[in-house]
């Protein structure tokens, strides 16, 4: 795939008026997070990383986004979203059980651990989760579809698009304070915005 915004790097704006101190502190901290689990076990962590790779596959030839780390830290801090489906267990329990059940389902269907399956098999399995067509008992009290959509897609999508590299990929301006934008009309671009390649 040709890159849509070649050469664009949100981080190049770090020391410009587009970033205030608070933004620098927050993004610096995020980028410095060690790509290691603090809450999940090593096995759970490998499983989560493999799951992230299927939910938000990363473009080749681009710096890798450590998607799983934000989820692990969210779990470590037990920081929920401010609501929970009555049918779902609390955050930590939902993730723990969901990862476990995902692996059980993989063994039941494909006779191997999720992390060992081929990407195509992993996708096929996730398709079944999305349709609630699961066989493992391990989903009891959680629900495959609820976990997949309500937890996995929700948290993984949100984590991926919290990293500046993801903003480079979609042409988002990133932090913008105190300097915001001036040119707002159709096809108008401020000099500090991404240039879209006409060859995509």
């Amino acid at each position, binding site marked *: 795939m040709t890159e849509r915004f070649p050469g664009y790097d949100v981080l190049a704006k770090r020391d410009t008026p587009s970033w205030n101190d608070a933004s620098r502190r927050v993004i610096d901290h995020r980028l410095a997070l060690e790509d290691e689990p603090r809450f999940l076990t090593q096995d759970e962590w490998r499983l989560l990383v493999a799951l992230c790779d299927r939910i938000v596959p990363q473009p080749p030839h681009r710096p890798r986004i450590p998607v799983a780390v934000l989820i692990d830290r969210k779990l470590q801090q037990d920081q929920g*979203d401010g*609501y*929970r489906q009555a049918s779902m267990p609390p955050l930590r329990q939902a993730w723990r059980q969901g990862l476990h059940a995902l692996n059980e389902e993989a063994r039941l269907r494909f006779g191997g651990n999720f992390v060992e399956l081929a990407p195509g098999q992993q996708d096929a399995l996730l398709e079944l989760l999305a349709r609630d067509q699961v066989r493992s008992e391990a989903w009891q009290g959680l629900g495959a579809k609820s976990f997949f959509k309500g937890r996995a897609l929700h948290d993984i999508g949100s984590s991926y698009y919290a990293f500046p590299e993801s903003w480079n990929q*979609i042409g988002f301006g990133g932090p913008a304070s105190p300097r*915001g934008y001036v040119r*707002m009309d159709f096809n108008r671009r401020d000099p500090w915005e991404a240039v879209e390649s006409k060859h995509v």
Partner: protein
Amino acid sequence: MSEIVPQVPRARDGRAPDVFHVGGWVPMREYADDDEVDFAIIGTGAGGGTLACRLSEAGFSVVALDVGPYWRPLEDFASDEHEQFKLYWRDERIVDGTDALQLGRNNSGQSVGGSMVHFAMVSLRFRPEWFKARSQLGYGHDWPVDWREMWRYYGEVEEALKIAGPVRYPWGPHRPRYPYRAHELNAAARVLARGSEALGIKWAPTPLATLSAPRGDAHPCVYRGFCIAGCSTNAKQSALTTWIPRALAAGAEIRDLAMVGRIELGNSGRVTGLHYHREGRWRFQRARHVVVAGYSIETPRLLLNSACPRFPDGLANSSGLVGHNLMAHSNQGVYGVMEDEIRWYKGPPSLAITEHWNYTDEGKDFHGGYSYMSQGPLPVEWVGTMTGNRGLWGEALQREMQKYIHQAGLKIVGETQARDENRVRLADEKDRFGLPVAHVTFSYGDNDHRLIAHAKRFMRDSLAAAGARDIWAEESETAHLMGTCRMGDDPSTSVTNADGRSWDIPNLWICDGSLFPTSGGVNPSLTIQALACRAADRIKLLAKRGEL
């Protein structure tokens, strides 16, 4: 995963944060727990913040408590969606129902300044007939207030917030011109304008509570687009930057990081004060009057949590209505891809609006109305729409995300009908203060579904007419909350009177979005603030007459 959050209260020792200056302070009057203040107000958002200002300016002694932190936006707010989750109510709540509400980010704030700290600034008046929905339009309930009186208070609020809006607003009775000029449109707003013109309906620049010219220490909007993640430049005119500084100057005390757990009823049948948790311990503030302004979930929760032998079903609940008739605006979006670069992350998210279907009754197969506005979600919100609504993941998700800067969208604020089964009650689970959390049930009704279907059809046509392709519509989205303690004229069918005074306990008041008997098809904050201003004037009058 917030990096910048005050861990201890800032408003104390005779001073409160000066929101307009990095590291700044302003003097603040303080009261002792044993001082019997005239008014203790729970919550400092659109309702509580406004009322605290207006009552202290009228000479009453006021303490306003909020469990949220007291921010200085200039130093505490990053341009970052994740960091700014800190503005939302993230303590647990349990949800269910066919259209179980997404709370937190979607509708609930927890800050001094309330949900206005992250609101989208859309500042609209109700259509006059909505105040008499039952008798004039044949659905819902009548409000116990007159629209002309409300329109006067709307004028006051628009002036207090220096609303930026068009010279002539195309719908409804005459209104004065907005205090500040309308904002320039972004491309996303122009898509709405194009579509409206193609379909032959009117549109307008949205009246917004963000500055289009300097005001005191606040600069005009810089079109950075992070509004619902908090405005780090103070262009946004929220309770935090308008009513609360005025309240402090007039002698009110604000207590941040102060959670109210229970309102105490005395032997006389009047409330005597409230129990609150601050700096690691429970305390009791005495008060002549208590006002609950915690919004549609926390207000009924607190009233229910304050049950006592005299009111075993919760305070002010002899009608049995506390917690019932919760409304959430329907909020379905329709999205499409434009050939042009739109870059909808620039500018406030909703710069253009049409209220056509609020003011036109012909051709509807449903009660109520809706407005719709242009959209500008940032990446984290947008990916949530893709995964949550469309269930996209994998290559399909990443392919869609690639179209980000070409995307345009329209979203309704749709009126929903008040229905008894949509409600807030107490769960068994406890929060970090040991208090039972809210259990919130919500499902759309048939009328709501018909309204949504109509809106989606119309917005699809509009987007298509504007030149969008790959158009799709969201299913089960909701926005602003309203109701759960409705006001009315009859103690058996409402919780308070028009002043927000509870029928059961003469010195217990409610002043927030929970008072709404119906929801209307516009964002609620202007109406909440107008009700608060009205309540303050009524309280002044009642005090003069010796009727408090």
